[in-house]
Structures are given as structure tokens and as C-alpha cells.
């Protein structure tokens, strides 16, 4: 159900314009046929999109828009439109005063190099009381402050939410149930949200993540122009790929065929480091405040995985300050992500035959690859400008200086590193975009 079978898949690279037209026709048809029919749901169609272009000064590695994109700006493309460009359409159906349904389809560059539209959301929402709402279906995974409108560029000043923090949880939705309770006390609004569900996501390189028991608990407070947010996320995470299978099968076989300490250690690594059902928790804090023409906001997050796997615990934060000058808002962002990197266990080599030692050394070296790849370490500083040029259209430009950490073994959030790439290398990224809503 989650993934279309290959035979049902739409052809790759459908032009985004075509999808837009299709949905607009559906939208117009629906509102036409439903006009003046009292018992029909009240339908509204909304859309959002970004047309973006990014250039990277660093040719040895790719800058991507999110964790699911297979390539991007730098090594693969001089100017990549894939990083930020996207189109979303949302259909709201108000069935009665309490019950409504929402479907959101999004076309965005994804794991298989296509822009095939996906169902981002599809849920029913029921107001038990004006303050208490239940939603069932494919719902948001609300880990961070901008999670609910993460894909809608028009709603935030940046080209994209700071990746150092936001890619700590690249999963934007899940299938399940969501409860929200809102209470106003004087001028303060308190919001409590709890949701539970599961999801399945594909990455490039035939990798996939199975997420179950995904729990989100969120408390939000809004007082005048200040908002605060605390969230707790926990999920059972199972990351699989042919590379991991081969690697851990290698450890397993070595363990089964080698007596003594080396064999025991290999079996231990196989058991521990396969990521089957590791429990992953994310704690996040966020705050935003506007005073006069100033807007300041920041978020901080810390993750924890319940046992040793190749996924490191991470700490990430960002801080943004912007100043509004009429329809123009220049802003500056600093962002940082740092792993609590695992000390990778090795198969000990003493006492092994030459052939066994060679196999053990190859396994040890290969284990470093996922451990380094999942120990994201980078920081960046960004200067940008948003200009509300037209009604429902914002133009943005931003320049980001991004630095990976020397000696970390990590290319940060950059992907496809060439052999000439060294951790510690930096990249300057220039991005331009047009964000719109309709």
C-alpha cells in the first residue's frame, strides 16, 4: 500500500507542469460539480511550489536538498534545480462542521531520480470539541518547528529549513493517528499533540527504512509574538540496504567460521550493528520571537539510539535573525550538527591466518564506511534575503558557507564524495528561488 508496485508506477520524470494542470483540472471539476449541492463536501484546492537553482563551489561532492535525493549541486550538476524545486497540491474537503479530509500530493526530486508525485498527507480530521481534534490517516511527523510546512518555501524566510537540524529527522510523515488539544489561558495558547504511527521510506542505492512505533509528543506555547515548542520523538528504526546486508553477512560468516576471540567479536558486531529495530529518540526545543521588525528563532535537538549501531547520536542547532524592511527581509543563519561518534569495534587480528587477517581487515575497513557516513558533522553560516515581490510570490537568494569537519571521516550532509574530497573541505552554495502559493 505504501509503495506503488513497479507496474503501477507512473512514468519517470513527468513534467511538473503536467501534474499541476492535471490537479487544477481535477480541482476545477470538483468545485464545478459541487457548486450549489448542499450535501456535498465543500472542496478547496490549494497549491504551493518552489522553483530553485543551486550552485556549489565544491566539485568533489554533491549538495542535496534532503536525505532522499541521490545527487545534487557540485559534482553531479553545475547548477542543480533538483535541490529545492517542488510542487504540492492540497485538496481540503469540509464534510461538515466537525469532519474534514485533507489530501496533499507532492512532486519533488526523490531517491530514484524522479519527480514522481507522492501522497504526503491523506487524513480525516474530526473535532471532538472545538479544542480537541483527532486525525487519522497519513499525517505529519511533527518533530521540529517547521515540520508541518517544511515543504512550503513561501512560509519561511530561508531557501530551505537549516539542514543541519532538519535532516536529523528527514521523515516528514507517517500513517497513524494524531490527537491535538488546544487551550487558551488569558492571552497564552497551549497546544498538546500526541501521535502514533509507522512508515516506510526508500533512499537512493536501494536502501530503505522501516519505521514502526513512531510516537511524537509535542507541547507548544504561543504568547503574543513569542512561541516555544518542546517535542519528543521515538521510533523503532530498521535501516536496510544491499551494502549493509553484504557487510553484516560478512561479519556473520566470519564469526561462524573462525574460532576464538576474533570470531566472537565478528559475531558480536553482526548482532549489534545491523540496525534491526533500534529504538531512536529525538528531543527537540524551538523558540521564535519577533520584536519590532526583528525576527529571531532557533532550535536545538539531540538524538539517542538505544544500542550500538552504525548510526551515531547527534546534537544539532541553528539560530536565525532577520530584519524586515517593508517587503524585503535579509537574514543570517548559523547552524551546526555534531555526532557523538562511536568508537568502532574491530575484529582483532592476532592469531589469525594470513587469509583470515585479510578478510578481517577488509571487514573492519568496510564497517568504517557506514559509521562515518552516519556521523554527520558540519557547520554553516548563511546570509540570505527574501523579497515578497508579488502577491503570493516570494523571491529568495542565499549564500551559504558550509564546512565539514577535518579528521571526522564525515562529509557532513554532502553526498557522493569523490576520492579527492577530504573531510574538512568546505563548500560555498549560491541558491536562487521563487516560492509561490495559490
Amino acid at each position, binding site marked *: 500500500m505504501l509503495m506503488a508496485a513497479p507496474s503501477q508506477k507512473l512514468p519517470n520524470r513527468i513534467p511538473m507542469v503536467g501534474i499541476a494542470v492535471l490537479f487544477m483540472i481535477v480541482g476545477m471539476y470538483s468545485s464545478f460539480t459541487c457548486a450549489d449541492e448542499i450535501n456535498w463536501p465543500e472542496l478547496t484546492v490549494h497549491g504551493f511550489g518552489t522553483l530553485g537553482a543551486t550552485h556549489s563551489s565544491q566539485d568533489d561532492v554533491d549538495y542535496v536538498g534532503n536525505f532522499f535525493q541521490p545527487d545534487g549541486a557540485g559534482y553531479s550538476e553545475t547548477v542543480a534545480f533538483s535541490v529545492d524545486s517542488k510542487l504540492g497540491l492540497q485538496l481540503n474537503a469540509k464534510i461538515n462542521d466537525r469532519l474534514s479530509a485533507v489530501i496533499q500530493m507532492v512532486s519533488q526530486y526523490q531517491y530514484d531520480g524522479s519527480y514522481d508525485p507522492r501522497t504526503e498527507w491523506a487524513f480525516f480530521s474530526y473535532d471532538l470539541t472545538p479544542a480537541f481534534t483527532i486525525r487519522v490517516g497519513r499525517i505529519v511527523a511533527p518533530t521540529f518547528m517547521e515540520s508541518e510546512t517544511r515543504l512550503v518555501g513561501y*512560509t519561511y524566510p530561508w531557501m530551505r529549513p537549516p539542514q543541519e537540524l532538519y535532516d536529523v529527522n528527514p521523515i516528514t510523515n507517517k500513517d497513524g493517528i494524531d490527537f491535538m488539544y488546544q487551550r*487558551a489561558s488569558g492571552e497564552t495558547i497551549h497546544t498538546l499533540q500526541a501521535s502514533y504511527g509507522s512508515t516506510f521510506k526508500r533512499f537512493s542505492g536501494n536502501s530503505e527504512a522501516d519505521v514502526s512505533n513512531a510516537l511524537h509528543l509535542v507541547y507548544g506555547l504561543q504568547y503574543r509574538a513569542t512561541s516555544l515548542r518542546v517535542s519528543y520523538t521515538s521510533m523503532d528504526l530498521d535501516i536496510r540496504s544491499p551494502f549493509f546486508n553484504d557487510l553484516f553477512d560478512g561479519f556473520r560468516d566470519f564469526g561462524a567460521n573462525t574460532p576464538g576471540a576474533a570470531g566472537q567479536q565478528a559475531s558480536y558486531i553482526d548482532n549489534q550493528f545491523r540496525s534491526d529495530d533500534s529504538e531512536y529518540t529525538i528531543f527537540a526545543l524551538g523558540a521564535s520571537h519577533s520584536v519590532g521588525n526583528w525576527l529571531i528563532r532557533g532550535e536545538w535537538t539531540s538524538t539517542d539510539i538505544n544500542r550500538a549501531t552504525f548510526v551515531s547520536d547527534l546534537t544539532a542547532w541553528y539560530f536565525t535573525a532577520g530584519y524586515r524592511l517593508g517587503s524585503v527581509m535579509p537574514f543570517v543563519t548559523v547552524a551546526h550538527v555534531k555526532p557523538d561518534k562511536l568508537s568502532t569495534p574491530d575484529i582483532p587480528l592476532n592469531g589469525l591466518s594470513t587469509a583470515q587477517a585479510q578478510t578481517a581487515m577488509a571487514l573492519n575497513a568496510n564497517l568504517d564506511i557506514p559509521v562515518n557516513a552516519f556521523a554527520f558533522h558540519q557547520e554553516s553560516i548563511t546570509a540570505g534575503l527574501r523579497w515578497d515581490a508579488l502577491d503570493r510570490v516570494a523571491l529568495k537568494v542565499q549564500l551559504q558557507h558550509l564546512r565539514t569537519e577535518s579528521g571526522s571521516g564525515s562529509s557532513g550532509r554532502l553526498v557522493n564524495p569523490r576520492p579527492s574530497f577530504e573531510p574538512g573541505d568546505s563548500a560555498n552554495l549560491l541558491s536562487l528561488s521563487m516560492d509561490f502559493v495559490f
Partner: protein
Amino acid sequence: MVSLVMRIRIILTSILIGLSSFSVSAEVAVIVSMENPLTTITRAQLVNIFLGRSSTFPGGGRALPVDQLDANEQRQDFYNENVGWSAAQLKAHWSKIIFTGRGQPPKQLENDDAVEEFILSNPRGIGYIQKGNASVNVKIVDIVP
């Protein structure tokens, strides 16, 4: 290519125009149904209802806000005075709420008469009109600090 100085001048001028139109504006009154027990509301509570942050009146019960067209002076005055946001800021804010799937902006009616009519037929309604246009059939709610 307009020079930077020119641009800054244009921005400053538009800010000044914005400020002056605010100071000479006719007074806007917030109205509710006679059946609504509400008599006063704080500015923040009013803003919470009109920005879709709160769906209930301070005393409880669902609130049904109603807006006016973008071009209407009353709308600009109402948001300038109570929220201090530009039309673009309001659009970004509502986009955010629409695309969370949690709400729709209030209906935008064409004039004060249409707003008053809406309030008369919706006991949970809350709207704003020019003070002079409010009839005796609706209740003006005082905005308190």
C-alpha cells in the same frame, strides 16, 4: 538598475505612507452577535482568533471570524492596528495554516454590510466594520489592553 539609496528611499517612503494612513484611518469596530455574551476582548485574544491560532472565544465556544476583502481599507486598518503585519506577512501566515491542513482563512466578505449580515445569521460570528456603520442589531466589543 535602481541605486541602493533610491531603494532605501522607496522603502522608507512606503513605511511612512503606511504609518500616515494608519494615523488618519477611520475607527474600526469589532462586532459580534447580540446572542454572544462577549463584551470585551484583549487585543491578543482578538489577534489569536483572527490569525487562526485559537478557534474559541475567551469565555469558550467556537468562534467564527469573518474577514473583509484585501483591498478594503477596513481590513488594512484592522490588521495594522491589531497585528502590525503587512498583507504579505498575513499571506505567509495563512499559507502556513492552510498547508498544515489545520484550517482555512476566514471568509472574506465584500463590505461592512455583508459582515453585519453574516454576524446576524451566525451567532458564533465575529467581524470588524467601520464604527459608524454598526447598526443596533449587532454588539460592539471593546478591545481592552
